[in-house]
């Protein structure tokens, strides 16, 4: 049966953990020493290793919550046994999955016009006494029950206080809570990359992102063994925020050292065609570099930005020059080439339908990764249309639309039958995407920098989705392409439930929803 406590009329649902127990010691130093000893004996440190805060140690073990007190005590280092006072319950918050160790303390804040006398009467009626006032708010206290009342009763007492809503603003058990460290990188422009972690500001809605930081707790930027092919115009392989992640052919004698150029039919995938005005997409070879940055810009290098999969590798596969005109067979072969070296393929473009490209996609999805199948992500297009473009509409392609910083579909983003997901990107009048830009002097969308804050469209959403797939494969590389797809579908957030009109979990506007990197890698980790 779930436990519930109420904070400012919001119900928080908890379950008692069967596999965790809190062990309360006589003094904090024994708790800490005991946790260290147990961790040392286990040799491998992981998130379930014993940890201590104050007098309480969190102990994890299958069914440990049901074990008798004596059994728990006997599992501890012998010299610490005598210091154990009791075991205390550990709850799991249903929303976050995080553990919360019960204490005897309750935090209570009284309403502003409540007198000292009223406060005292209420506390006395519940046999609660004030332990300490809050340092920063004079109406807030930590209170405790009588000595003979243990941690199991704190939840119920907190709820009784909350029920006094004429007097109490809120009351909640003062749990010792597990916190998930948000694994931000040290890249200075990371705070502008709202699509990774949106903390609000500038009119954006906090949380409208892919939960990248939480995903990075599990797999920091993914694995270098996972390669994302950026099939597009040139990728600036000398860009200081991309260079270290550019794929290097393991065959030292192969001519394609760092990718391939199917447009000029050589092995240099860098941008080389530019026509004024140089900061425009039309006529310039500057689209592949920002796409690559969204997926895999180097992270934690104290420079620029971080890609969602900042430890994975980029395979640049050039198919366009400045004009986005290319022979069908070269584009199809570029996909086949990508399928030989990359697990994930990102295509931020659309084209007229043709059999050769269609068969190339079938070739890599069916035959890539030793038969497990490459994942091919394609943009739905930016045409304001209620149908998605080719090759996104190919049934083996994962079609990606765009959502904005408000958690709604970007106006331009094509939608309709076949869309699989959306991922955060730009919209009219809303924040754009900060990513790498062509680093050649006076070239790229931002002529004065090697970074742009104005990238966007389904062009940006697509490598973001590809990067999430790369994180999924980083934690579980044996998954087939359909398993990865199903994980991404199952863990996508059903944003805009009213406008989305989801039917059986699927929306023509959003597909299965907005991708969530954290949920996807968590699910992949579980197999």
């Amino acid at each position, binding site marked *: 049966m779930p436990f519930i406590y109420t904070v400012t009329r919001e119900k928080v649902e908890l379950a008692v953990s069967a596999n965790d127990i809190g062990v309360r010691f006589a003094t904090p130093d024994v708790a800490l020493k005991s946790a260290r000893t147990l961790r040392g004996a286990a040799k491998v440190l992981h998130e379930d290793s014993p940890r201590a805060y104050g007098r309480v140690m969190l102990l994890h073990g299958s069914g440990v919550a049901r074990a008798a007190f004596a059994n728990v005590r006997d599992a501890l280092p012998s010299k610490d046994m005598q210091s154990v006072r009791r075991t205390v319950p550990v709850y799991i918050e249903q929303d976050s999955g995080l553990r919360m160790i019960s204490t005897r303390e309750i935090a209570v804040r009284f309403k502003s016009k409540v007198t000292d006398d009223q406060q005292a009467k209420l506390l006395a009626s519940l046999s609660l006494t004030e332990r300490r006032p809050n340092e920063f708010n004079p109406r807030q206290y930590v209170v405790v029950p009588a000595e003979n009342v243990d941690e199991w009763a704190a939840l119920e007492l907190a709820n009784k206080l909350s029920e006094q809503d004429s007097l109490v603003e809120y009351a909640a058990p003062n749990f010792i809570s597990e916190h998930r460290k948000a694994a931000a990188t040290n890249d200075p422009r990371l705070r502008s990359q709202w699509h990774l972690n949106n903390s609000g500001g500038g009119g954006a809605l906090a949380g409208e992102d892919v939960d990248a930081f939480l995903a990075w707790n599990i797999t920091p930027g993914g694995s270098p063994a996972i390669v994302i092919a950026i099939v597009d115009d040139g990728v600036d392989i000398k860009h200081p925020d991309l260079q270290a992640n550019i794929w290097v052919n393991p065959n030292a004698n192969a001519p394609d050292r760092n990718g391939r150029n199917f447009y000029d039919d050589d092995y240099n995938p860098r941008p080389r065609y530019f026509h004024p005005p140089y900061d425009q*997409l039309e006529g310039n070879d500057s689209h592949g570099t920002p796409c690559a940055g969204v997926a895999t810009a180097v992270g934690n290098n104290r420079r620029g930005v971080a890609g969602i999969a900042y430890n994975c590798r980029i395979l640049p596969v050039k198919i366009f*020059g400045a004009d*986005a005109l290319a022979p*069908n067979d070269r*584009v199809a072969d570029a996909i*086949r*080439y990508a399928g030989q070296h990359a697990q994930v393929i990102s295509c931020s473009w659309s084209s*007229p339908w043709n*059999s050769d490209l269609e068969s190339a996609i079938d070739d890599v999805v069916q035959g890539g990764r030793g038969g497990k199948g490459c994942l091919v992500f394609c943009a739905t297009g930016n045409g304001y249309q209620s149908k998605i473009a*080719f090759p996104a509409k190919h049934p083996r392609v994962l079609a990606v639309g765009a959502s904005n910083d408000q958690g709604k579909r970007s106006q331009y983003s094509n939608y309709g039958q076949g869309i699989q997901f959306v991922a955060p990107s730009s919209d009219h009048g809303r924040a754009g995407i900060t990513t790498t830009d062509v680093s050649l002097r006076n070239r790229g969308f931002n002529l004065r920098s090697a970074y742009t804050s104005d990238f966007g469209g389904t062009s940006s959403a697509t490598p973001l989705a590809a990067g999430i797939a790369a994180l999924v494969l980083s934690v579980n590389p044996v998954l087939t392409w359909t398993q990865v797809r199903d994980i991404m579908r199952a863990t996508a957030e059903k944003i805009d439930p009213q406008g989305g009109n989801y039917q059986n979990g699927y929306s023509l506007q959003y597909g299965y929803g907005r991708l969530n990197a954290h949920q996807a890698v968590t699910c992949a980790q579980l197999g």
Partner: protein
Amino acid sequence: MTPKKAPTWARTSARRVSYKQGAREVYVKPLNNTVAVRYREGAESLVYEALRSQGRVRAIEAQRLLITEFPNAARYTEAAKQLQLWEDEGVVEFVTPVLRDEESQLQQILTDEITVRFKAVLNTKQLQEVEEKYGVTIVRQNEFVPRQFVVKVPQTRGLRTLDVASQLDAADAVEFATPNFISEYRR
């Protein structure tokens, strides 16, 4: 010497045409007064200058292509006569219409090439039979798929590549045959 009469391909009207791809019928429409010209190596400046005096030229160097839009039918017809002559002399490899794909509304430049994937690997004799039957020449085998080839349609005129592609696509031994367009991509 300039021919007196415009070639037949220059009289291709901007009517909707189609080609077959398996069960699918693909519809395209030639753009008015617009051609794609592939010049021989070394002939770029000669052809470029001549076309630039008649219309608006967009050069795609990597493909040796000049896409030219003429301001009216008269200019187009006049240029077509010269292009016909150059084609006969080998100065240009082909002159083809620029099409607009009906579904995507993207441009496709018809070339003299068709990509053919056979259902099984054919031997040399079988490949020769295909060449003879359809009047095409195999120019290269696909790097990644051994049963896939690019074939060239000699003496390409107007929409002839589309017709040959449709015929090949319907052949029993063929998995698919598709015109190797130079396509416009939307980034």
